[in-house]
């Protein structure tokens, strides 16, 4: 047994003790109102998604492409036994692709998914930790109307309902014959 195994064992014991203690302590959410976010890597920056706006997160198995006038539409994918259209999240925000999309965020408001490259972390903050952004009138920034202050930095909050509304507007603007 190498000497390095002792810290690993203590780490494992610490993990086990922390896991067990969490069930012994009263839940923090019972006492303080909290809000959950999912931090993602998009383009060259970091953004957060409000967890309440997401139905679920799934890894991309495969995306089936088809001809479409919408450049942001990547194709369709199967998620939990249902087919959903997959849109490029960065394209709606006007960002350069930061890599191949690996994850899908399925929205709860409409049956569609937005693809992004990487999950950074899970963020839980007290309620009201977000603030309004300074310039919401720009086209790309209207989906980034809020800022979350976390760990000493300001992270833009992506508004999935805003993107969904934009997608619906774009779809409705398409010619009906071609949609049919």
């Amino acid at each position: 047994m190498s000497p390095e195994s002792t810290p690993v064992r203590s780490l494992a014991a610490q993990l086990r003790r922390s896991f067990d203690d969490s069930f012994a302590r009263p839940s923090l959410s019972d006492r303080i109102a909290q809000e959950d976010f999912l931090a993602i890597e998009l383009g060259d920056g970091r953004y957060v998604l409000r967890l309440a706006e997401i139905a679920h997160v799934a890894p991309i198995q495969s995306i089936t492409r088809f001809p479409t006038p919408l450049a942001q539409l990547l194709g369709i994918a199967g998620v939990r036994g249902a087919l959903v259209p997959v849109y490029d999240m960065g394209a709606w925000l006007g960002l350069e692709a930061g890599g191949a999309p690996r994850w899908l965020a399925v929205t709860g408001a409409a049956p569609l998914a937005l693809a992004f490259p990487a999950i950074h972390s899970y963020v839980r903050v007290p309620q009201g930790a977000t603030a309004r952004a300074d310039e919401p009138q720009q086209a790309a920034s209207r989906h980034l109307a809020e800022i979350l202050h976390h760990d000493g930095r300001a992270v833009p909050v992506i508004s999935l309902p805003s993107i969904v509304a934009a997608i619906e507007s774009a779809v409705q603007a398409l010619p009906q014959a071609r949609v049919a």
Partner: protein
Amino acid sequence: MWTFGKKIALGFAVAFLLLLVISLVAYRSIEALSRTSYAVTHTHQELEATAQLFGSLKDAETGQRGYALTGDESYLEPFNTATAAMDGEFKNLRDLASDEPQQQKRIDTLQALATAKLTELRKTIEMRRKLGADATIKYIQGGAGKHLMDEARQVIGEMGQVERDQLRKRAEDVETASSDARTTIIAGTVACLVFIILAGAVLTRTLSSQIGAAVRHVRQSSTELHAAANQQAAGARESATSMTQITSTINELLATSRQIADSAQRVATIAEQTVSAAGSGESIVSLANQSISGIRGQVDMMVNHMLELGKKSQQIGAVLDIVSELAEQTNILAINATIEATGAGETGKRFGVVADEIRKLADRVAASTKEIRTLINDVRSAVNTSVMATETGSKAVDAGSRQFADVAVAFKRIAGLVNTTTEAAREIELSTKQQTSAVEQVNIAIANTAQATRETEASSGQTLQTASQLSSLSQDLLRIIQPETAA
């Protein structure tokens, strides 16, 4: 080219010739005067002898007259004395006038007259004795005796006149010779004086000019000599300094040569030790070669173990990939569970807590997986580095093994070369000792040269002083002969 000696000799020769001419003229004049003086004396002797002869004749007549008057025999003494001396006096007169034929004739006439007179006187004396005084006086009064005396007086007068004429002529000769001698001496003296003055002026001018030029040349030469002596002194001082430096350098060279000799001796000793060390080194190299073969086997085994360790690390990495994937999927499951629990409302809250803890656990597992991956990567990198280093070491061992063989050969060569080095070191030692001896001789020679240089410096100082004295002397000389240029 007329030298000073020739010019001065010529001047003295001309002056001497003039003096010689004057002296010859004076000598001839003195000779003439002397001869004239002797002739005058001779003439006076002749006159005196004539007067003495005539006096004897008159004494004889005086004695005859006194006897004739008195008959006293004592009065005949002058007659007898004069008669006895007369022959000698005639002989003396003839001798004095031997170079005068006219005077000889007159002497003959005078002697005949004197003989006739003496005969007449003897006759009267005999007459006095025999016939008495009267007959004798009567006979004398007849005048025969007087006639003879007058003739004799006339002849003696002619002889005296001839001698007086000669005296007058010789007085004129003396005056002429004296006048010539005075004229010659005065003229010659004046000419000699003029010549000496001219010659002196010419010689003075010439000598002043030539000696002045020579003195100026001497002065210039003394100045050049002064400068040359200064340069020589400076050169001698520089040479002395250089000699001192050379001596120091030679001494250092000497010390270095001795050190080289000692070092060569030590090198020879060390080379001998190196030969034996090379021999033992060869055997040590053989043993080391065997050891290297063993190390080679160990290194190969180590390389295999390292490669095996690398493979195991890759397998651990694959397992970690699985664990990481599981942690990520667990995290997503926990997130989705949280979303579902939130959607379930109050009933899902407890499930949400569980899902949250699972998510945290998955996060920690993911973080630990990252750390382990980092560690595994470090291990793999270390293994790769070790494998590469070991392979490099293996190659180095191979190369070392080959090089050990080369080293063994090199040791043999070293032994041979060290032998050569030993001989060379001994030759160097011998040569260095010879060089040391030569350097010592050079040092002695340089010391002698330095001494000669110092003497040269002293001599230069003496030359300098002499040049200064020569310059001062030439200045003084120039001041003496040409005051206007010297000033």
